[in-house]
């Protein structure tokens, strides 16, 4: 029982990271109607930034996290400006291939800069672990901070979208780009802001992910990225609470299948969930039904 609880809590923690990444996917997909394949690799860039600032330069963790957020935000906006903006009116196939190209570019640039060997990441979270049920279940500080930051981010984001002008503009653009333009909303700026927020979240996710799983390589972000996309689809793409539910479900499924079925097949199981969800309920748990117009 206690081991099950440990797996469950670790699953929720991993799921919280997925949820934070999935928020980036869901927002970008909702507004720019594109799958930002490079989102997972922005996580990796965030991880490397913290590694360089904290482990190599010896700065305090908070500086590292701040640097990661700034670097990733700039990177996200730059990617959008250079690679995606010129293709806004092009077919979705070309946008997707470009996004794959960007993802591949980031991975291989990191490979050249930092080398092929994996770096061991020193956790930047220094919170004492918590023991529950009379010491039977230990929850590490990383797990606590991860779950907590996910909750804070979710609340902050919901408030931002519902209460601020920019947030409302984002909702309007995701609803109808043309009408939003007529209402005087700067669509390009709104999309850039969305990318900035998504990439900043990716940076935080990168820090949390690398603190819990302390290995860093050029492909660190690729798998979590795809799984988080799965989570976003699972919860219903475009929906913020959906990203949370989907993310946590994904994390729990992955950790439990790793523990009880097969660690080798856990990825296959996660992907099977994606396939089943897409077939049974393509719009996800909380997604909106889209009517096709001729």
């Amino acid at each position, binding site marked *: 029982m206690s081991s099950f609880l440990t797996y469950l809590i670790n699953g929720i923690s991993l799921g919280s990271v997925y949820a934070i990444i999935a928020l980036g996917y869901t927002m970008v997909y909702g507004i720019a109607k594109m799958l930002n394949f490079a989102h997972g690799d922005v996580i990796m860039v965030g991880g490397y930034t913290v590694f360089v600032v904290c482990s190599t330069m010896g700065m305090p963790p908070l500086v590292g996290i701040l640097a990661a957020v700034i670097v990733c935000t700039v990177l996200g906006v730059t990617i959008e400006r250079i690679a995606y903006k010129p293709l806004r009116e092009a077919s979705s196939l070309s946008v997707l291939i470009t996004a794959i190209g960007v993802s591949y570019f980031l991975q291989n640039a990191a490979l*050249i800069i930092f080398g092929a060997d994996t770096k061991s990441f020193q956790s930047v979270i220094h919170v004492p672990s918590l023991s529950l049920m009379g010491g039977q279940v230990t929850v590490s500080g990383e797990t606590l901070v991860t779950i907590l930051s996910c909750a804070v981010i979710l609340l902050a984001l919901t408030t931002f979208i519902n209460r601020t002008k920019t947030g409302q503009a984002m909702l309007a653009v995701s609803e109808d780009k043309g009408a939003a333009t007529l209402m005087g909303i700067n669509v390009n700026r709104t999309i850039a802001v969305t990318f900035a927020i998504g990439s900043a979240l990716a940076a935080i996710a990168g820090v949390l992910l690398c603190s819990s799983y302390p290995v860093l390589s050029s492909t660190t972000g690729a798998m979590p990225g*795809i799984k988080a996309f799965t989570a976003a689809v699972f919860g219903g793409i475009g929906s913020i609470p959906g990203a949370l539910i989907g993310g946590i479900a994904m994390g729990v499924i992955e950790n439990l299948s790793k523990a009880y079925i*097969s660690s080798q097949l856990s990825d296959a199981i996660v992907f099977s969930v*994606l396939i089943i969800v897409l077939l049974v309920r393509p719009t996800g748990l909380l997604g909106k039904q889209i009517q096709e117009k001729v």
Partner: protein
Amino acid sequence: MKIKNKTFRQNAITYAMVLLFYLICQGLIMSGNMSSLMKGLMVPICYYVILAVSLNLVVGISGELSLGHAGFMCIGAYSSAIFAVCVDGKIPEMAELLLALVIGAAVTAVFGFLIGIPVLRLRGDYLAIVTLAFGEIIKNVVNAVYVGVDENGLHFSMKDSLSLGLSENGIEIINGAQGISGLPRTATFTTGIILVFITLFIVLNLVNSRQGRAIMAIRDNRIAAESIGLSVSKYKMMAFVISAALAGVAGVLYSHNLSTLQATSKNFGYNQSIMILVFVVLGGIGNIRGSVIAAFILTILPEKLRFLSDYRMLIYAIVLITMMLFNSAPKAIAWRKSIKERFFSGKKAEAGKEAQ
């Protein structure tokens, strides 16, 4: 009639190109002017060309982005390798290779059909990500499976080789992540080229047939094509299954070119699928001859440019991005048009002057 002649001429150029390449290479091999390194690349060129052409059928002709092409190659390679180990030494080499090709293509086609049922119900980005998922699932499962054979037939297990329960003279075929060893290396450059010809024949004929035009009509406007009575799922499935089966053939060629077969992320993973996609994009999406040329160049070039080997993947990524921006961005298209117009109008003006 004129159009028919034109496509015939275009196809003939493609075939002639491959034939010329074969003759030149054979000449070089015969006269001993080819390094062993290049000789080792001859079969890879063939299976990369087949992979690129078959992926182009899905991406270019059918208009769906498939990111799991290496998974189909994996199925073809493994199914034919199991067959090869089972019959090793019992039938002649040529017959073995021929049967392996048939089996590899058939098994992959079946898997392509089964995977196609769920995949083709989806569209766009979802379709791409699900094909990626299937590719990874195939690679994961192949790495976790144990297969053995004895006089009672094939045994499967997902745990370890001991739980196969083989009898004394049984052979272990797939040993989990260690893969298959002791394969016959029967693939030759000539068989590879013959398979390239067959692939080109199938794909080029399909593209210029009634079915091919239906597939392209669905790509260009699904709703319009459906409303004139084309069965969308049938034609999409046709392209998908043929593409999968051809990737399976490439897999057979791949497995028969090695003595040990392992499924890693390098040969059957996402990276391989992306590399095939790079061939297709560089050659021109929907352009079969372009795929052949791109696959050929991008297989030879890295060996010739060894000093750039660290930057190879980075260059691929930049190629992908710039090609897409150059070919699909509305501004780039408009810019190209204006250049063309200026060029041609200049010519016209000159022609006008001459006429005066």
